């Protein structure tokens, strides 16, 4: 068991995992994710497509092998932190003791009649203590010892928060024209888009999309209202509503023998069946806001100038035909007349509830704090021993020995000491 723990917490294992994760991420980013076999077959050939699906490279970041690597990384971080903790505590305690810094482990040393207090202050160690035998000593940046440990803890929290979020997250996509109400699947809630505003600059470029929403809980007969915009989600019933994108839609009216049979809002990409003849279906694949313009674009941010509606008609699943209807034109199928009008934007909302986002954020902040501690807080200690009229001063730095030695010797020279020897010790920069 001890051997397994030691292996799991070992540095070579950590480096191997990091190399594998980097390679997996880099390689997976070159394969288009979430596509069907046909797509990969067309792109890379049938044999490679089969291999991509067999190795789950089509959804690499959720594959068993990627999750496995992440689990091993967590185990590595956990074991590393647990196994290192007692040694780390001992090291921090030893470092603070007056005999923790001696001639044998010093990074640099000097002697002279200068004032050790001034030297300690110059080395950013103003809090000086005196031992029982009259030795002066000071330490600084001891929190730096904890840097790597805290950083590992932060990464663990981050991965844990991400994994829990992925497992428990509730996510829905709702798209609706202003005035329409749509259900949110198993949440039981209904969303009504009361209004959709597009704020434009003088140049016509879109600056913001803003949707007014009403979310209804039909069971408790309560409702909450809110406004969502890009970079400004609405928080309703514990769900966040994100203004994700917009598209085109229009009203479709069906007349039967001149009498209105049905009227509904239809978004591009939607079908609707004739109410009294469900085998007759109209599909609305595209809308062109400016059909006379060249090239023909269906960009949802363009203003409507010369609207044209592309439609397809299906009967019992077989396509009967497709064409363009311009404003005021009608489509006649037997006794039915179909008209498109009132083109306008629909909004596509991403709705999400992830109760572990805070844990990911906390993990990120802890990681950052760990990095700051590891990189900028270099644990350092110094002591001064009285030898006759002279003080013998030692300095020790756990990280960045060569730079500390320079700093120590410079400070020593400025405070009346003469370098007597310089040595370097192996640092611990992780």
């Amino acid at each position, binding site marked *: 068991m001890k051997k397994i723990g030691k292996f799991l917490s070992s540095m070579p294992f950590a480096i191997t995992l990091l190399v594998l994760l980097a390679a997996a991420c880099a390689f997976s980013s070159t394969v288009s994710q979430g596509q069907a076999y046909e797509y990969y077959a067309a792109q890379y050939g049938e044999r490679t497509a089969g291999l991509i699906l067999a190795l789950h490279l089509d959804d690499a970041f959720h594959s068993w092998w990627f999750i496995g690597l992440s689990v091993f990384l967590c185990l590595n971080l956990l074991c590393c932190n647990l196994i290192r903790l007692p040694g780390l505590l001992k090291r921090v305690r030893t470092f603070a003791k007056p005999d923790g810094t001696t001639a044998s482990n010093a990074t640099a040393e000097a002697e002279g009649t200068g004032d050790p207090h001034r030297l300690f202050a110059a080395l950013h160690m103003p809090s000086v203590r005196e031992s029982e035998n009259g030795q002066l000593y000071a330490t600084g940046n001891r929190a730096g010892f904890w840097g790597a440990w805290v950083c590992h803890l932060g990464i663990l929290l981050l991965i844990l928060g991400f994994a829990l979020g992925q497992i428990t997250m509730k996510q829905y996509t709702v798209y609706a024209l202003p005035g329409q109400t749509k259900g949110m699947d198993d949440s039981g809630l209904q969303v009504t888009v009361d209004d959709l505003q597009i704020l434009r600059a003088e140049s016509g470029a879109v600056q913001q999309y803003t949707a007014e929403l009403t979310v209804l809980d039909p069971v408790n007969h309560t409702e909450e209202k809110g406004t969502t915009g890009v970079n400004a*989600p609405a928080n309703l019933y514990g769900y966040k509503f994100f203004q994700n994108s917009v598209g085109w839609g229009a009203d479709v009216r069906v007349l039967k023998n001149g009498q209105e049979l049905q009227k509904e809002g239809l978004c591009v990409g939607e079908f609707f069946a004739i109410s009294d003849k469900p085998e007759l279906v109209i599909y609305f694949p595209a809308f062109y806001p400016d059909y006379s313009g060249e090239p023909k674009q269906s960009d949802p941010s363009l203003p409507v100038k010369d609207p044209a509606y592309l439609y397809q008609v299906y009967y019992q699943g077989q396509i009967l035909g497709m064409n363009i209807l311009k404003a005021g034109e009608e489509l006649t199928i037997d006794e039915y007349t179909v008209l498109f009008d009132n083109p306008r934007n629909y909004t596509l909302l*991403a709705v999400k509830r992830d109760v572990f986002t805070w844990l990911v954020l906390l993990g990120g902040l802890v990681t*950052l704090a760990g990095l700051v501690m590891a990189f900028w807080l270099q644990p350092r200690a110094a002591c001064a021993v009285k030898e006759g009229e002279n003080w013998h001063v030692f300095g020790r730095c756990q990280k960045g020995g060569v730079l500390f030695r320079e700093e120590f010797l410079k400070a020593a020279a400025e405070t009346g000491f003469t370098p007597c020897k310089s040595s370097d010790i192996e640092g611990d920069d992780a």
Partner: protein
Amino acid sequence: MMLQAENTLFTIVVIGYFILTALNFAFVILKKDALAKVAFGIQTGIFLLHTAALVLRGIGAGHWPMTNQYEFATSFAWALCLVSLVFIRKYRFPVLGAFSSPLILLMIGYAAMQSREVKELMPSLRSSWLAFHVSTAIIAYGSFGVAFVLSLIFLFRGRIKGEGFWGQHIPQPEKLDMISYRSVCLGMLFLTLTILTGAIWAEQAWGSYWSWDPKETWSLVTWIIYAIYLHLRIRRGWRGKAAAWFAVIGFICVIFTYIGVNTFLPGIHSYA
């Protein structure tokens, strides 16, 4: 008006970086320390002009000037210039300028080849997180660029025998390794901030703090490469040369994340 002034300043800055590189070459060929002092002064001057150009660009465009390839490239060159100035001064290491100025020149040259047209920002880019996210990214990239240069110098240092010009002007390998480590530390901290601020922003804009978008994925790859570098440095036998090679690989990843991803792997960061 502002953009015209920025255009003129940018041209002056490009010429300035060219002169700086030539001066640094003259310093290492003629081996005259006075030229290094002049080069440092010129680099400081160009840096100030470059800062002014970026400020003018920001005012003229009406947004933080880091939203397209041109703006990011010129900001990247600016960050390289800033970090190398700091390291030259802090560690009294003028030869660093000789090695870093060609990299700055390459980056500003890349910026000069990009379209300088100012476009309206798309709604998702209209966020106060833009300034934090992209500013931290350029500082991270600038630091990694300097670490890359320092690692090249480290690898070059290994071939130097005796105490000639190079032996006197390039610190001992141990110190060089430590300076490179400091630069990677700075980059690593800012890259972590970049990823973190990007995640918070993505959560606000798209409802997902991490989508495995190619840019995000390659930022993570870069982060992991430098994490490997940091771990390698504390293993006996890997410190020095092996770690220096990882710093070089890390910077290749940085460049791929910046230019390669936009070119070969488009995603939701395609504008960047």
